[in-house]
């Protein structure tokens, strides 16, 4: 586990980073550029939405050692729940959001029961396969657009009020959800439960011999991560007003892992930075050439080969090198 950063050994001044991240996100729409360009507002909304999914993935991957390659499935489930309800004229998120979370949790519980019986590379491949399963199931839902997906008639409402209709309102709603998810994950990591979950990554045999049923703890964590994935999908459907199987393709799952890796695994706030880095980079490279993947692909290879610990790790080591002179 060369990538994982110790959770306890990080310095105090890194507390400043998450605060800064959320301050920037809170103030960004006030900046002039955002006033004129709804495009940037939309981009940052997406950053935060993917930030939630990446956060969830970092939670199980960075703290539990569970490398899931099917996390986009939960994003898809959340999005499709919103979409299918909307197709039947139900948009009130007092109903739709709990259902989206519940369906995600159920899927996580069922697949987790199988996946978590296996280890390492088996786990990667099986989560990948289950993700693909959901992808194909969504593609075969012909009443809901099949492979083409479908447009949402209306963004979610709350008790009948169209609270998310305004882009800026949506932005701040997403920010609140992101902040809540972040704080929740942080709390869990430090809690009794989180300590058991982290211990299970370090040494499952030891954890079993002091009396913990490792599998059950991991499954609960997997369900939590699944719910957050579902939340992210639910918000994504609202932001794009569109759902499609492509939300849960295996490339999406890969991209979520890349976001986590970009930000530096096992930090939580790093996942948000990673999501921002990934989406902004995609946007930027995409602006230069439509074949941006020709640049991006090799870049990934180079990052793996040369920059261990992600962007935060990289800046951290550069910073330390500078300070040492």
């Amino acid at each position: 586990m060369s990538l994982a950063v110790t959770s306890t050994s990080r310095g105090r001044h890194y507390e400043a980073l998450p605060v800064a991240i959320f301050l920037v996100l809170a103030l960004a729409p006030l900046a002039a550029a955002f006033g004129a360009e709804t495009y940037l507002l939309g981009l940052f909304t997406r950053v935060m939405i993917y930030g939630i999914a990446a956060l969830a993935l970092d939670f199980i991957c960075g703290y539990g050692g569970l490398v899931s390659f099917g996390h986009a499935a939960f994003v898809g489930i959340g999005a499709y729940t919103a979409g299918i309800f909307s197709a039947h004229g139900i948009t009130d998120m007092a109903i739709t959001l709990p259902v989206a979370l519940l369906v995600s949790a159920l899927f996580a519980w069922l697949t987790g029961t199988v996946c978590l019986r296996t280890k390492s590379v088996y786990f990667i491949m099986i989560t990948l396969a289950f993700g693909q399963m959901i992808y194909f199931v969504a593609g075969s839902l012909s009443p809901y657009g099949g492979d083409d997906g479908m447009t949402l008639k209306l963004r979610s409402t709350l008790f009948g009020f169209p609270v998310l209709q305004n882009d800026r309102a949506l932005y701040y709603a997403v920010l609140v959800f992101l902040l809540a998810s972040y704080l929740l994950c942080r709390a869990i990591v430090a809690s009794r439960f989180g300590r058991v979950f982290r211990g299970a990554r370090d040494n499952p045999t030891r954890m079993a011999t002091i009396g913990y049923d490792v599998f059950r703890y991991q499954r609960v964590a997997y369900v939590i991560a699944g719910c957050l994935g579902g939340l992210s999908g639910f918000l994504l459907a609202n932001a794009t007003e569109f759902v499609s199987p492509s939300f849960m393709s295996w490339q999406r799952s890969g991209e979520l892992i890349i976001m986590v890796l970009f930000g530096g695994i096992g930090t939580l706030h790093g996942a948000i930075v990673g999501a921002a880095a990934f989406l902004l980079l995609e946007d930027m490279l995409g602006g230069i050439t439509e074949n941006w993947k020709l640049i991006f692909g090799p870049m990934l290879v180079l990052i793996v080969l040369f920059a261990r610990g992600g962007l935060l790790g990289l800046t951290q080591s550069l910073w330390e090198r500078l300070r040492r002179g």
Partner: protein
Amino acid sequence: MAEPVPNPVLRIENLRKSFGGLVVTDGVSLDINAGELHAVIGPNGAGKTTLINQISGTLEPSSGAIYLNGDDITALPPNRRAERGLARSFQITSVLPRFSALENVALAVQARSGSSYQFIGRADRESALNDAAMQALTEVSLDSRADILAAHLSHGEKRALELAIALAMQPKLLLLDEPMAGTGPKESERLIVVLQRLKGRFAMMLVEHDMNAVFALADRISVLTYGRILASGAPAAVRADPAVMTAYLGEELE
């Protein structure tokens, strides 16, 4: 020393384990009574660790039965055995490297006190957990190193930490798999003193190569060779047993 009691803490009946064609545990039966320290010695590869793994539940026996306080635990997973009061240390140090010494022990305390399905509230600030953990660390003289990451402890300290983890579980039976392995003479002596202090509080099974430790601590000794018990009895009797002399001690002690 220990009186024969009708209901031993641990009873193993005719345990067998084979890997492919290799029989590693070949019909082992033994008892450990309350408060007794029962040492299991034997040359490397005699199947001592395999035996401990079967008792603690990380390895499934091919046949035979294991009873803890009279209950059949042969089919229980390790965590359920731990809940019933079975604790162990490992031959190759097995701690959580990215947790502090205190946290390593606190996790064991946590397993015994209340639910671990608590998702909020910082576990590292729960004084009930920390105090009990600190007490266990003190018992193995590791209290001054409580905040050091386990990965950064010296080898001897890690062995002591394993012991503290086991203590924090408030065990009825403690399995010690070569606690002295790889420790220097001074550290060994310190560990012997610690173990002497703990003796009598719970039943212990000690697997060890260090004969100084074995003869200083054991109430009873069983000699394991080729997966079978060659001799079992009081230390003096075992030491005098000619079969043991040739098969094990004779060779090793010259």
